[in-house]
């Protein structure tokens, strides 16, 4: 069922039902996902839902298939088996134009930041905006750039090149570039990797701020427990390409499972 249809259905119900509908509405629905590279199976029968408005953290050791999972969601990798529905659209049946349209509603924060080296911060921020929101005037583009830079606290970096920025600043600018197009879903690939504890905390609180301000649904891939604690509404733990446990943060904190304990202690 298309996302728009789901929304239409919700408007026909009562106000209370509507709240429940929007809360349980999955914006991402993954069923029995399988992905392998050569003979190595990276994801095995992974099924998960991202509910509208929630922060879902996917935890796991390095090499457990977290990044592959998130890249399958945006169509950068094609799974061998299984289905992925994003905002009601089945990824496997979408044309390249359809996929392009869907991607306009998804923000993706890359592990490395992936800022364009040959462009200034301003040009980096304008790049997706000019292509996704083509009707904006120069004034509106400038205002939007200043707004997102203010949100990440880096207004002074407007004319800097990515090479002049620290790791934390690059992550913030990358986050600004992602939110500048007002995405409905945010996908974070290891947002705190390689950062010091203070900057990691800042990025974690930025993730929460973005969720509150832009009303996004977020899928956060990480192995940083502190980040998971401060951002997660729900956690899914992956091990060797399979879902090991799913639950609230407290379920993981109180778990006696040795593998989970090794992560959370």
């Amino acid at each position, binding site marked *: 069922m298309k996302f728009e249809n789901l929304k239409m259905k919700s408007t026909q119900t009562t106000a209370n039902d509507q709240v429940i509908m929007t809360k349980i509405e999955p914006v991402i629905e993954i069923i029995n996902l399988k992905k392998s590279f050569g003979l190595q199976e990276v994801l095995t029968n992974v099924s998960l839902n991202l509910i509208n408005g929630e922060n879902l953290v996917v935890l796991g050791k390095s090499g457990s298939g977290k990044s592959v999972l998130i*890249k399958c969601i*945006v169509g*950068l990798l094609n799974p061998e088996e299984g289905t992925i529905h994003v905002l009601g659209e089945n990824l496997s049946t979408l044309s390249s134009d359809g996929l*392009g*349209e869907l*991607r*306009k509603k*998804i923000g*993706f924060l*890359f*592990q*490395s930041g*992936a*800022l*364009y*080296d*040959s462009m200034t911060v301003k040009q980096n921020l304008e*790049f*997706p905006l000019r*292509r*996704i929101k083509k009707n904006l005037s120069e004034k509106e583009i400038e205002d939007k750039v200043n707004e997102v830079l203010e949100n990440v606290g880096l207004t002074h970096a407007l004319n800097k090149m990515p090479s002049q920025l620290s790791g934390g600043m690059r992550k913030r600018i990358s986050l600004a*570039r992602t939110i500048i*197009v007002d995405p409905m879903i945010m996908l974070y690939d290891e947002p705190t990797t390689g950062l010091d504890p203070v900057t990691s905390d800042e990025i974690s609180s930025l993730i929460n701020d973005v969720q509150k301000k832009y009303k996004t649904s977020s899928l956060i891939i990480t192995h940083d427990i502190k980040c998971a604690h401060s951002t997660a509404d729900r956690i899914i733990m992956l091990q060797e390409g399979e879902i090991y446990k799913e639950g609230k943060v407290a379920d993981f904190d109180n778990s006696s499972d040795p593998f989970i304990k090794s992560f959370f202690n």
Partner: protein
Amino acid sequence: MEKFNPVIKVKGFATKQSVRLSEKTIAKTEKASNFLTDIADVFLFIASIIRETFSRDFEFKEFFRQCFQIGYKSLPLISITGTIMGLVLTIQSRPVLVDFGAVTLLPGMVAISLIREMGPVITALICAGKIGSGMGAELGSMKVTEQIDAMEVSSTNPIRFLVVTRVLAATLMIPLLVLYADALGIFGSWAGANIKGDVSFVLFFSQAFSHVKFMDLLPAVIKSFFFGAVIGLVGCYKGYNAGRGTESVGVAANSAVVLGSLLVIIVDVIAVQITDMLRS
């Protein structure tokens, strides 16, 4: 029971051999299959470039930026190379022409050599080194640092933005650089002729161009477009399809130069054959 033992050993030996043989066969089949896949990839890459070239949202700004990078920023290198090319050619050939009493043919000979062959080929080889490696390394590092993925995710076609603009800019700029190198080569030749002689600039140029025909210039310019296209295509293909590690950036840049230079020479041989057929 003992009678059967040797039979079992022979069977075991044969099995090991057949396993080795089948492993070799699988490896060879994989190699052949990879080679065919690579060829298919190249054709798909070219097809996507052609499709995106005629798409509605052509990236004019990036195209002009690439023209500036490829054309204007190559001028110092091409200036030095072009001038030295004419100078050396003159210094080397002058004594032979003096021996034959044909020194007056020097300007025409140098001009025809430069315009027909040396200018286009040497400029293209220099550009394969400078521009091809630059494209391979830049796109390769963009791939490694996920910048190409970021572009794709933000609903921008990376082929349209990165590849089409570079290939078209190289196709248009290299013929201009070739003409520029030809002009400077003739200037270098005049400078070379004046080391041991005294020829006026106007006389040298008028003698040089009196021997050059339109059919000397036209095939050279046409083949220069192909040189540009080949250099751009190879540089972009190698960079765009680089592996994920940092090592692959170096590999992409290196193979862009090697394959680009090789293809320039192959295109030149074909162009010379076609021109020769048309002349005769």
